[in-house]
């Protein structure tokens, strides 16, 4: 019996100076309003808003891919995000999406299996998603038609598979921002 892994959130620190709110342009201020939780404007948001056009476009797409109603279940999207983050070496994203998966499923089992490197203990649906997500995240992609066949074999339809491809791919994007433009540390 494995003891459960419970991850604590990490704190992200940028490698470059974020935009100071007092010095932000109107375009930057407008772009930052799109964030899902705008109680405090994070270092991450203030760093990426150096380029407000791409910040705004990506944030809208990211929120659609991760939160749109219907289609692929939320925990499965989080698993795609987590697997991509593991391959891409983004510890910060991995912890965020591992925790979200545990919250949504009210279980630490999947996170425990992945953090203890025991993917063979996953159920068939999680295993098919995890394997495909890892293989699609490598450059160049190592995913094959057999991966798609495995997803269909566990009952996923085309809409769900398209949702999954987007969840994995948007972390091919987000990981290349978070892990490249900053670093993660323990503690709040």
């Amino acid at each position, binding site marked *: 019996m494995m003891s459960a892994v419970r991850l604590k959130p990490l704190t992200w620190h940028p*490698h*470059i*100076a974020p935009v100071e709110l007092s010095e932000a342009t109107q375009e930057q201020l407008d772009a930052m309003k799109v964030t899902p939780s705008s109680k405090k404007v994070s270092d991450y948001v203030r*760093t*990426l808003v*150096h*380029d407000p*056009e*791409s*910040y*705004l*476009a*990506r944030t*809208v*797409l990211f929120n*659609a*891919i991760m939160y*749109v109603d219907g*289609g692929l279940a939320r925990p499965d999207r989080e698993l795609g995000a987590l697997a991509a983050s593991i*391959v*891409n*070496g*983004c510890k910060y994203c991995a912890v965020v999406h591992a925790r979200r998966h545990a919250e949504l499923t009210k279980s630490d089992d999947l996170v425990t299996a992945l953090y203890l490197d025991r993917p063979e203990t996953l159920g068939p649906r999680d295993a098919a998603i995890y394997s495909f997500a890892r293989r*699609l*995240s490598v*450059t*160049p*992609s190592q*995913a*094959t*038609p*057999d*991966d*798609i*066949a495995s997803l*269909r074999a566990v009952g996923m339809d*085309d*809409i769900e*598979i*398209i*949702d999954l*491809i*987007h969840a*994995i*791919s*948007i972390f*091919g*994007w*987000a*990981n*290349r*921002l978070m*892990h*490249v*433009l900053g*670093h993660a540390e323990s503690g709040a």
Partner: protein
Amino acid sequence: MIDAIDKAAGLSPDDALFNARRFRPEFVQGAELCRLSVLMPANDQGLAPALRVALARRMAALNADQALIADYAAQLAQLDPPEQLRALAEGERDLDEPLATIARHADLVTLTPNRAAASDIARLAEAGLNNPQIVALSELIAFVNFQTRVAAGLRLMRSA
């Protein structure tokens, strides 16, 4: 309307997958707006469209995406790029600065993002890039790696 991802994945309006993709209009439109924001933004931050398209061609090649290599090469040809940008697009490493440092960074982050470190961002700054340029470059690199994965996944769905 056929967009850049349909073209890359080889989808036409007769395909079931073309229509399945439209079940998520926010993904289709969102990805297209993202493409415009990194390849031909209203404010290019001093990173010209020809440099951006040349980098996209280079990263499509690192992703072994034949359709996107051809697409970006065609877009680049229309911009009549100088020799240095042609070389950058083709994967050359022996380039003038700051192109050599920019190309090295695009290669590193595309192939082995897990190895990226603070020193890699410091190199970009030393090569003369300011913070908006560092962020705009990062978004472009990350976008192409998103686009190649969506295209690769859709192609697999067609063939599976």
